[in-house]
């Protein structure tokens, strides 16, 4: 079926909904999502969203900028960071006006709490900056935005799976998507397309990310020759529930929780004497790894304890009810009485589709935009997170840049026009779907995916070196070859999730290759990327963004300078 609109937004998480809301009533918008909007991954975000409101103590957006840049190990584009941190304040008020039920101070203001890496006065001490709704901040953002979209009669195409992007003569013209319920392939023709398709944590085995977090938008962009920026920077959150990867928010440490090794020692005292358990995530994840390697994991195994037993039980129940529930459900323990076994869990993609501060996708080191193509949220790389994202800055990123993309789209639409679609714009997508639908090979998608995830955990995780990364590279070559011999069992049209899982696994493979190439090439350690064979940051050679492109089936590597304005790179200690 053929659809025509001004804008197609792909993805109905925080970024997509924020954009849709901004566009509602001003342009004709179609919003596509492979899950019902309220099932999007934004809903799982727990801890909070930052803005220097100063509701509980003095705070300034400039301090927030500094923390973000330092947290990102100086790989952030500082002009973009300023936009993020300055806009944050109005954005939080806007969310409140839309109905978001933030927790409150006794005076009725939005309450704020500590979060990792957020400090006062350029690093002096932790600051109350994270606005929160208990430990379901993302849930409340997602609900609030969806509810307002309902109110504005936004047109949703629920359970439509993006298959392809239509780019013709260097201009973006729409997308092709599979209607899951019927198996029908639809063409959405529009001069402006916004990808808000989220991240790709499912390239790893132990992850806090949803089963649907397979980087579809990013992989589709790569296939069209759009680069991926900084894919080697992936964040491992230090406190995933042991073996399951389910997240225990940093807010738990913000409220006073501490990490302990097998001797009961609060080991962060040795690694980050000022910020302790609230040091940035990349550092704590590495420190846990070192504790484990030196035999101080619990029972000699690969995990440590998160200790909330010294907190007032009332605080735990009131401010951390969901994680209390998770820990009780999945581990059968009461976090006010027993310690929680945790290990680092793959959490957040700092890299993604390169964009400018208006969400325009830019395709080279000179930041040349691809007309009509926008990206926002975790699938995009602005880059405000640099080499390591600070907690609470992603929920901010999705609302700030979701909104800014929409505003730019409105300006763009004034000049943009509906160019006629090329013939058979949906041809490649149809061919791909029928190829998978009729596949009868002996390889099982699930087996390949499991091998991929294991390989990435083992070789491209918290600690990397050339040998591991080369192992990963050859394994990926093998997996890609085997992927051409898959066979699926479901040949039907209705909700064929056998088909979509195969497509998603193909996307994960595409992205994993870029992560490994970026990591192999970056012979230094910075933020979330740690090379044991190159343990120091090397600004002389690597203070630059990676850009990886796929040209004629082969990956090619390039770079882009980092925008540095006020904050000159310094050694990063906490």
């Amino acid at each position, binding site marked *: 079926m053929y659809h025509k609109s001004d804008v197609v937004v792909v993805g109905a998480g925080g970024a997509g909904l924020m954009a849709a809301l901004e566009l509602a009533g001003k342009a004709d918008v179609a919003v596509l999502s492979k*899950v*019902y909007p309220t099932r999007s991954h934004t809903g799982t975000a727990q801890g909070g969203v930052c803005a220097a409101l100063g509701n509980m103590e003095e705070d300034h957006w400039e301090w927030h900028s500094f923390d973000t840049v330092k947290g990102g190990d100086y790989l952030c584009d500082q002009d973009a960071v300023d936009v993020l941190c300055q806009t944050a304040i109005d954005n939080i008020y806007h969310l409140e006006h839309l109905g978001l*039920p933030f927790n409150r101070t006794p005076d009725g203001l939005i309450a704020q709490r500590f979060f990792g890496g957020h400090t006062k006065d350029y690093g002096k001490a932790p600051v109350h900056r994270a606005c929160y709704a208990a430990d379901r901040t993302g849930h409340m953002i997602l609900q609030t935005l969806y509810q307002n979209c309902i109110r504005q009669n936004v047109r949703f195409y629920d359970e439509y799976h993006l298959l392809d992007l239509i780019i013709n003569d260097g201009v973006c013209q729409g997308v092709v998507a599979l209607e899951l319920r019927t198996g029908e392939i639809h063409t959405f023709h529009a001069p402006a397309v916004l990808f808000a398709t989220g991240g790709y944590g499912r390239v790893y085995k132990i992850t806090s990310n949803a089963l*649907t977090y397979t980087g579809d938008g990013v992989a589709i962009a790569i296939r069209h020759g759009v680069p991926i920026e900084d894919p080697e920077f992936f964040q491992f959150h230090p406190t995933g529930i042991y073996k399951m990867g389910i997240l225990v928010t940093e807010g738990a440490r913000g409220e006073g929780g501490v990490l302990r090794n097998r001797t009961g020692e609060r080991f962060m005292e040795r690694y980050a004497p000022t910020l302790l358990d609230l040091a940035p995530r990349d550092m704590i994840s590495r420190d846990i790894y070192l504790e484990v390697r030196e035999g101080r994991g619990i029972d000699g195994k690969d995990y440590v304890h998160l200790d909330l037993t010294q907190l007032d039980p009332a605080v735990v129940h009131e401010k951390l009810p969901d994680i209390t529930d998770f820990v009780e459900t999945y581990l059968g323990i009461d976090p006010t009485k027993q310690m929680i076994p945790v290990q680092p869990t793959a959490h957040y993609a700092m890299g993604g589709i390169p964009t400018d501060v208006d969400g325009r996708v830019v395709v080279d080191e000179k930041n040349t935009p691809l007309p009509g193509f926008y990206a926002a949220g975790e699938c995009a790389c602005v880059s405000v997170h640099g080499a390591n994202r600070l907690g609470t800055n992603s929920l901010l990123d999705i609302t700030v840049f979701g909104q800014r993309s929409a505003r730019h789209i409105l300006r763009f639409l004034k000049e943009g026009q509906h160019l006629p679609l090329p013939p058979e714009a949906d041809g490649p997508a149809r061919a791909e779907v029928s190829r998978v639908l009729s596949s009868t090979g002996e390889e099982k998608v699930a087996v390949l995916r499991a091998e991929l995830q294991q390989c990435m955990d083992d070789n491209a995780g918290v600690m990397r070196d050339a040998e591991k990364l080369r192992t990963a590279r050859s394994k990926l070559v093998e997996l890609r070859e085997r992927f051409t011999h898959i066979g699926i069992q479901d040949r039907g049209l*209705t909700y064929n999730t056998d088909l979509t899982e195969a497509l998603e696994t193909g996307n994960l493979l595409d992205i994993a290759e870029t992560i490994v190439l970026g990591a192999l090439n970056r012979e230094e350690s910075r933020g979330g990327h740690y090379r044991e064979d190159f343990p120091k940051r090397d600004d002389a050679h690597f203070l630059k963004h990676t850009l990886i492109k796929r040209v004629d089936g082969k990956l090619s590597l390039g770079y882009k300078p980092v925008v540095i304005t006020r904050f000159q790179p310094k050694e990063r200690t906490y």
Partner: protein
Amino acid sequence: MKVELSIKRFDPDQDEASHTEVYGVEIEPTDRVLDALNQVKWYQDGTLTYRRSCAHGICGSDAMRINGLNRLACKTLIKELGSKISIEPLLGFTVIKDLMVDFDHFFDLYKSVKPYLINYDPTPAKERLQSPEQREAFDDTTKCILCAACTTSCPPFWSDPNFVGPAALVNAHRFIFDSRDQGGAERLEILNGREGVWRCRTVFNCTQACPRDIKITKAIEQIKRLVLFNRV
């Protein structure tokens, strides 16, 4: 441990009626029912179809009838159920395929209660004030993940699919009791109508089914009292 899963199956492209298929899986007692379903789908029968995303009880994708009760597959552990597990789609919605039901009607009911903040005052420069006590008044009902476990466990809803149902009532409560909201009267008029709050016969199934432990019956009672006496 070895577990036998009896799953109700239906493929609209092939079947006239649903049937049950039995699968054996080897799984840990601390694994989730969702892990068992994934094992079947990934390694035994790729045609098995169900929704899932977050895998930890937050996105609301995988409510289903497990051993006769509505629960989230990702929040129910095998050890709670024993070695024989029956899995069926939610009751009261049209089954599209296997465990996938049609949610469109459910979301229409949700939308019918105006689930968004209504406030006619000029927008202030900063936040609207709300005390912690005012915020607490509707805290419980903000937890809803729209999984439909409640609505599809409700006998009045089974007999009258136009009844707005517990999930929509929970979401109406979330706004009616928000001190910043001014749409209470509009919503109460809807809820006082034929398909509104009076269809609820206080069966309590919804409260038992809620995977988020929302005290649904209590919220509905608060709405009823507000309609009758204009007080809580």
